[in-house]
């Protein structure tokens, strides 16, 4: 019960002050990170209430999709199912986490309008809620990942520490993208549609369903400049026992730094206005 026992709110006092207040919001959200977790967990549980298998549906529908696409497209691309199913499974699961976090980010503040307009809860709490919700979903998908890795034997060659590091990069980047679209979507109601179009296009442009080596060398920029490709590669390659190019990490680290700087400064500027957007 020691939350918000002292509250001081003031008018604008210059850019530096706004940044400090934004940092304070971030700190407060981290102190109550369990609240974000409870909210996320509540979201997942309530989404599947009344269904017999509950959140396992996330796993099942993903499994069906992986099998279907893996078998059919393996034929289309004439690659062995043995290689292709793990590739597609990992691709769909981790790409889904990225796009899920971003797409659901559009609703982060809009959905929380009621709470934001009568409590002093930190805004970051709702950003973490969206991120955690997608991580909980990812937790369910990991069943598929494990099954595929074990069945096709690549669990022996997989490099788990490197994959875990890749996952951290993935979450770091997905989180700022999620927050960015959350702020902008609160202000402009067209943004969710735009965001969805972009993530849909990304699903096609990124080697989620198709092997990256099928692309002619002169089009390699599609891969090198595609942030989604690097995000995916950082996690998928080590799990398949492959190496990750150093420039992928460079790209992801740069993207995280620039992205968070951009998002945070936008947040510092709009923080006191967001509740009025809703």
């Amino acid at each position, binding site marked *: 019960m020691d939350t918000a*026992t*002292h*509250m001081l*709110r003031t008018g604008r006092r210059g850019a530096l002050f706004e940044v400090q207040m934004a940092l304070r919001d971030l700190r407060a959200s981290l102190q109550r990170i369990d*609240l974000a977790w409870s909210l996320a967990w509540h979201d997942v549980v309530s989404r599947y209430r009344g269904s017999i298998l509950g959140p396992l549906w996330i796993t099942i529908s993903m499994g069906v999709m992986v099998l279907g696409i893996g078998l059919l497209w393996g034929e289309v691309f004439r690659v062995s199912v043995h290689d292709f199913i793990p590739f597609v499974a990992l691709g769909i699961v981790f790409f889904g986490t990225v796009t899920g976090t971003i797409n659901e980010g559009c609703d982060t503040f809009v959905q929380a309008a009621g709470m934001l*307009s009568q409590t002093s809860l930190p805004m970051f709490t709702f950003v973490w809620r969206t991120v955690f919700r997608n991580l909980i979903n990812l937790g369910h998908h990991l069943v598929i990942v494990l099954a595929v890795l074990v069945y096709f034997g690549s669990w022996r060659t997989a490099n788990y520490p490197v994959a875990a590091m890749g996952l951290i990069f993935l979450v770091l980047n997905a989180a700022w993208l999620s927050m960015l679209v959350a702020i902008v979507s609160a202000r*402009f109601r067209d943004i969710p549609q735009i965001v969805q179009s972009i993530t849909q296009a990304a699903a096609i442009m990124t080697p989620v369903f198709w092997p990256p080596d099928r692309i002619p060398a002169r089009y390699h920029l599609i891969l090198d400049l595609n942030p989604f490709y690097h995000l995916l590669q950082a996690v998928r390659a080590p799990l398949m026992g492959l190496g990750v190019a150093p420039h992928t990490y460079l790209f992801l680290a740069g993207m995280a730094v620039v992205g968070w700087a951009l998002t945070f400064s936008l947040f510092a500027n709009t*923080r*006191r206005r967001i509740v*009025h957007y809703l």
Partner: protein
Amino acid sequence: MKAPPVSISCQDLTLRFPVYGVDAKSLKKHLAKITVGGKLARSHGATEVTALSNLNLELKAGDRLGLVGHNGSGKTTLLRALSGAYEPDEGTIEVQGHVAALLDLNLGIDPTATGFDNIRLRGRIAGLSSKEIDQRLPEIAEFSGLGAFLAMPVKTYSAGMQARLAFAAATAVEADVLLMDEWIAVGDADFQKIAHRRLLKLVERAGILVLASHDVELLRLYCNKVMRLEGGVASAVTPIKNLDELMAA
């Protein structure tokens, strides 16, 4: 360690609302505004409403402030600002003590979740730990009088039952500063009676009450001070016995 005494202090509080019209929220309009420049310039930035202006307010433990004023005079805005949701544009708000705002009973009520889950969710939002909620759960459940229904989704409840649940959950957390928008009277006659007693207890325990209401009798009953808002401008805080003069002014 002794906590500093409960208090509310607003200095030169000014709060402006930017009004984002339904269509002004569309990106197209925004872009159009930029491209056609001068044409629409007069509508640009003009839509700002001053909801509170230069409000000064000092409250300390034991103060029971009633807010009166017409619709749109800024009562709810002031309450939301005191709850920490709205940031002032100018001036400062300082609140010592744990704030509970009973502005919207349905805060965080999820119709698809069960009654129990909703109580938990509401408690978490109010700052209780899972353990504290588990301790209070039996009391809240009993108070709501919903019995076995608490294990069912809230959407199966009647409106009155929903109100009972919301009320029981919202009033389970004691606070130093209690903000209320209208006295909440919910449920059937029986429930209203016990709800009333519970609110009174909550008010007694709270150091400060700020209650916005149109009901003069109610204000006389619960408040010892009163302030009138008129178009975002506040009168001085006066003792409740001057309510009639204040209303007539």
